[in-house]
């Protein structure tokens, strides 16, 4: 009788699909699911509940009666946003800068991780890793200040150029150099830190694969290409999808600190636009929320597309 019941239960578990499967898993691994509760609460309080504030995009905010009580204004805020030529320009500029980041900056930590992994002297490897990771902990204010000292007309680089009899370059005030400067400083500051996740993925690769490749006569390049890269591809896919989901966010701190009056025309990305509208004029939370909501929707759409694309190409999606 007991064996019959056990058989019935096993059949049910095997046949279960979707929610049923989740419920069965939850019953089976309930201790692990309990561990998830604090994180879940955090997300509900700090991520999902504040999303209710997005309704401000369709309201005229009245502080005294709060977000929920403020009167609806339909699509009035969006109409004002979409009518503004500078909004569309900032959207275009944000996408342009971020597509460039995707092509130039995204591979940088992967390459760095691969290079660091190839270092054979353990101590040297650790020193290098520390050196590359350190800039991540500097604020953009500091980085901008270092840049000014290095690249100004009487800075280190231009002084060196002058000493060599070469003409000086207006690095800080050139509109055409602004975008490359963003990429270079971003790589300098972030590549080391971002490479940690790839190094960790690399460290998880089964060493037998390398040994087998070595026995088969694979060169170092071939080992990287045929063993390391395929093994960290799932990590690359996930991070690529997440980066794509941030294409409408261009890094306010970096651009705010690096831009100046001479480069302002190429520096007004969406975040700078929101800042200008919000803090150099009267406060309009409805308008700002409308811009933010628009950005989030585009980001979400891009994320879903990238996720689907990754799966279609046989790669890994965000959810497996």
């Amino acid at each position, binding site marked *: 009788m007991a064996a019959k019941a056990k058989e019935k239960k096993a059949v049910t578990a095997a046949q279960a699909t979707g929610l049923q499967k989740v419920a069965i898993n939850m019953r089976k691994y309930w201790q692990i699911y309990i561990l998830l509760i604090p994180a879940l609460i955090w997300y509900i309080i700090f991520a999902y509940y504040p999303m209710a504030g997005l309704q401000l995009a369709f309201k005229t905010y009245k*502080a005294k009666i709060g977000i929920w009580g403020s009167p609806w204004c339909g699509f009035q805020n969006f109409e004002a946003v979409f009518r503004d030529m500078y909004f569309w320009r900032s959207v275009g500029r944000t996408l342009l800068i971020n597509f460039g980041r995707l092509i130039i900056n995204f591979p940088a930590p992967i390459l760095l991780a691969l290079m660091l992994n190839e270092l054979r002297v353990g101590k040297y490897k650790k020193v290098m890793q520390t050196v590359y990771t350190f800039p991540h902990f500097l604020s953009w204010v500091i980085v901008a200040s270092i840049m000014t000292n290095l690249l100004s007309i009487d800075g280190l680089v231009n002084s060196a150029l002058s000493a060599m009899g070469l003409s000086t370059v207006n690095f800080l005030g050139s509109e055409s150099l602004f975008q490359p400067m963003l990429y270079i400083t971003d790589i300098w500051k972030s590549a080391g830190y971002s490479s940690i996740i790839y190094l960790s993925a690399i460290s998880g690769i089964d060493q037998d694969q390398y040994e087998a490749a070595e026995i088969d006569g694979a060169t170092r390049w071939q080992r990287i290409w045929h063993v390391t890269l395929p093994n960290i591809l799932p990590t690359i896919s996930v991070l690529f999808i997440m980066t794509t989901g941030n294409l409408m966010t261009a890094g306010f701190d970096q651009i705010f600190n690096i831009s100046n009056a001479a480069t302002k025309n190429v520096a007004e990305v969406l975040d700078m636009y929101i800042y200008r509208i919000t803090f150099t004029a*009267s406060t309009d939370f409805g308008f700002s929320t409308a811009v933010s909501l628009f950005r989030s929707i585009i980001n979400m759409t891009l994320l879903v597309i990238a996720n689907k694309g990754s799966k279609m190409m046989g790669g890994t999606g965000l959810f497996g």
Partner: protein
Amino acid sequence: MKSRKLFALLMAAMMAASLASCNSAEETSEPAEDPGSTTSSESSTPAESSTPASTKTDSGVLAATTDVTAEDILARDYSEPITISFAGIQVTDGLDYNHGSEYYEWWTETFNVTWDITSLTFDNWVERMNTWINADDLPDWSVWNFTPGDAANYADQGLVMEMPDGWKEEYPNLAAAATCTPANEYYENLYGGMYYFFRPVFANNFPADTITSHISLFMRTDLAEEAGYDLTENIETNTISLTEFIEYMQAIKDAGLMEYPWYDLSGSIGQAIDRVSGCAGVLGSAYYKGDDGMYHWGPAEESSGIKEALRQIKGAYDGGLLYPEFYTLQEPDDAGHFYAAGDAAATMESGMAAYFDRYEQNMQQNLGLSFWDTSDVFILTDDEGISHEQPSTNYWACNILSPYLDEAKYERLMSIWDYGCTEEGQLRIRLGVPDVDWKYDENGEIVVTLEEQGYATLEEKYTSCYPITGNMFILSDDYSFINPGFTKQARDKVADMYTKRAEITSSRDQEPDWDLLSYSSQALNLASMTYSDEYSNIITKSGDFDTNYDQWVSDKMSMIQPVLDELNEAFGSAE
């Protein structure tokens, strides 16, 4: 010492007469002081450097009484200890504003109050104040950088406290001081109640019959002489046109004395353009009402002179007269090049006594030169000799109170403000502790004893005296004109410059355009921009200037035109 007594006597007389000059309706057409006869000066505080340009001194005067004396205020019952939260800029983080200073303890002990202070910076001031107000979570007392669009909204929603009926009678000294800036009366009428206490820049000591901006051009006159450029007439009048200024720099460069004679920040370039163009910006904009009664946008009007001024400065930039990366300079980099590195011949700077003294001290220390022997200050004008600016509203930022302030806190705070506006209060704020930092001699004259104690200024002795009391309501600029802490030479220079500026300013006999100043709309928000950055961008742009400028104007007009349409519909009066 004798001169100190004289200053002190003058100051006491001025203070006695001053509030009355603000009070009395009969005296409104007279300036509070004859700037020519004062030995005035200014201190260097952030408040001053941000002070807006000027207004006529006789505007906005309410009839009020000062029946309530300082003694009356001090005789009130303050037995219940009270803690008042305060948020403001210019507060030093970590400094104890309640204890450790005889100066400060008098206030906290007499009024039985403890300050709970939140320090704001210029960077986070606007953002944090707007966040707190919109969260309906204001500290008891805050200093707010007034913006008309938000102000109307906040008053309408009751997010800031409206003064109860009878406050002017209850606190007449404060009410009298409030009349020194026309903004208080204007916005009280506009919003149907007193929500914002606009803090007067000048209340007791007006530097001239028309208050003007103190921003001046600091220039090396010795280099002009060396380069063979004659500045004699300019030195006489302390004025220089933009054309002359560029010629002066060219002469210095041609003589090989400086690589880049002019070092200035992007913001200062904007101010230079304001001074020489016919539509100096109102609150950072460039809208103005023309003779046709309609509103215009300065950059789009040839007659405003903005384009020509920009063309001249662009020429100076391309010709290597202006530091090539001026847009990267941060205050006080520009001044440093003038008085420390010595590789700048000119820079725009606050024309205050403290700055003159600072330049003198730094030039002596770093260059072994005397500022007074080698340099002078000039008012930048257009080619007609006019220095352009908007009529001032004579205020800088405003005090606001939490709508949830209870009666006890309200009464205590208002009493403190009221006392601070009395003659006795002002003496205590500006001169320090009576019988310690200053005293009356046998002739009843004030004698300042700070120097005997080894201090040059009150701020040096009492680090914490600023800003809670110093800028409690009447700003410190007001007293600085007679502050004996600065050299006589510097004070005299400031007074002289104010007098000269008042004679050539375009704002003379002009009233502020309140319609424009108090206007707000979504279109205006969308058209907001930092004009000095826009101008700097045009200056640094390569290619044909006219093409770049016209392109910029046509580009901006898409967002400017809706604002002009709104303004003209509301306030335009086409003839």
